[in-house]
């Protein structure tokens, strides 16, 4: 992993109220790559994203984006820095039209952005389904179309880092393929992508790097291929656990 890092987490501790979920999470996301985070349910994968994006406070540790300290910045400031976050589930405004939903992706740019109409047209060109339904209420879209809307909206300001949490959930296999194709296309344009996926096999197969998170700590960080073939990953997904080697050794194991 000699590549320059787009995103770096170093010893991040965060949680909800008294509860600590991230216990010194440490990892790197190389630039122009797709990095997939896998791990058991409740490992803290979504919590990592919320902490990176300023929705949860990091109690200690640092988060750096392109070398710059972005720990605990507001979502607005992070969007302005070039980060976009597509959370798990449905994140649309159901009673607004598809077009208005997409337009709201540009709010953080303020009035400075003069080519907004052109950008929205280009986005609609790329996704014909959304163009066809541009003036309908967003609630009339299918699950896959809603996810596409969220992605289009997130890409409106040309982010340099995309955080995307379980995009394939509830999508048809064809839609999953299409979504992965969009992410690959972005990666080829130089965007760094950090993705969480339950479907570890197919996600790692299209990724460059893989991270295994367990109990809020990085257990494995390697190329996607190595993670895919790691016997410990199979063990983990069969209900086992990857223990740190020495007792008291809390440092994440980085291969």
């Amino acid at each position, binding site marked *: 992993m000699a590549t320059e890092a787009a995103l770096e987490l170093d010893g991040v501790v965060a949680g909800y109220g008294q509860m600590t979920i991230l216990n010194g999470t440490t990892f790197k996301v190389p630039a122009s790559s797709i990095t997939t985070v896998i791990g058991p349910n409740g490992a803290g994968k979504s919590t990592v994203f919320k902490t990176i994006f300023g929705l949860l406070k990091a109690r200690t540790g640092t988060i750096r984006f392109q070398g710059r300290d972005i720990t605990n910045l507001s*979502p*607005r400031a992070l969007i302005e820095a070039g980060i976009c976050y597509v*959370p798990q589930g449905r994140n*649309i*405004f*159901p009673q607004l039209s598809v077009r208005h939903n997409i337009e*709201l992706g540009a*709010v*953080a740019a303020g009035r400075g952005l003069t080519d907004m109409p052109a950008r929205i047209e280009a986005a609609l060109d790329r996704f014909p389904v959304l163009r066809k339904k541009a003036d309908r209420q967003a609630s009339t879209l299918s699950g896959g179309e809603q996810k596409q809307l969220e992605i289009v*909206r997130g890409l409106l300001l040309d982010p340099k880092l995309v955080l995307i949490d379980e995009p394939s959930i509830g999508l048809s296999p064809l839609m999953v393929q299409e979504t992965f194709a969009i992410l690959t296309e972005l990666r080829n344009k130089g965007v760094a992508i950090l993705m969480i996926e339950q479907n570890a096999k197919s996600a790692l197969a299209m990724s460059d790097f893989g991270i295994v998170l367990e109990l809020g700590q990085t257990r494995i960080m390697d190329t996607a291929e190595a993670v895919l073939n790691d016997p410990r990953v199979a063990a983990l997904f069969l209900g086992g656990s990857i223990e740190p080697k020495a007792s008291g050794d809390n440092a994440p194991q980085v291969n």
Partner: protein
Amino acid sequence: MSTLINLIISGLATGSIYALVAIGFTLLWQTSQTINFAQGEFVMLPAFFMLAAMNAGFPFWAAILIGMALSMLILGVAFKRMLVDPMLKHGVLPLAIATMALSLAMKESVKQFYSAEAQPFPSLIPSIDLHVLGAVVSTQSLGVLAVGIGAVVALQFLLTRTSVGHQMQATAQNPTTARILGIPVERMIMYSFLINAGLVAIASVLVTPLYLAKFTSGETLGLAAFIAAIVGGFNQVRGAIVGGLLLGVVDNLAATYISTQYRAAVPLMLLIAVILFRPQGLLGSAEERTV
């Protein structure tokens, strides 16, 4: 026939006032889960701001502007910062109860510091009877209806045609996602409190010449707005408009055709009918918060 037209027009005029108050009521609910039981007193108070300004020597038009400004400041900003924000942390119900306490406090304050007597209030629109197609229609009704409709159209334009309006709707429909997109959610919520303060001040200017300014005059209005909001669908601005107009007309017809004894029961019967047969309201959809 001519009386009927007359009754419908004056009913729509009163209904448009109900609608303004009901719209503000639903806006506060949508953007910050505030059930404002002091909404009627919010209509009562601006008239007293305006009376005080006139007593201080300002002309009527300037008094209206001063009343609007004070309303925004006190019923908008201060209400949100000093009552809603601290109480919402404890839940929707404690906040609702706090607004009930506020309504009592507002009534008592006006009684103590201004007067317990009903005060005459000048009318924005001169009252002249027009004879149209055999019906007698008062310019006052038409004027109230015009101002009410104007305010509603302007608000609908803001909400549906401007970026700020879309951001307000987004905040009401999905505040978490709104934040993730960098929408200034707190500012949007403040805007809805300012809009409510503006709407009640307009309603105050329109309604007070008809019923005089009195510390109790918010009671019936608050109830009417509450009923209008529920009849229309509680979570919809459009619903509040329809609910308000419908209630105004029904109320006015009941006053003429049903004995005065039962008149007060008619809005409540409308409310019960809607709750029984269409609990989501006339335009409402179940379990969704929208603007």
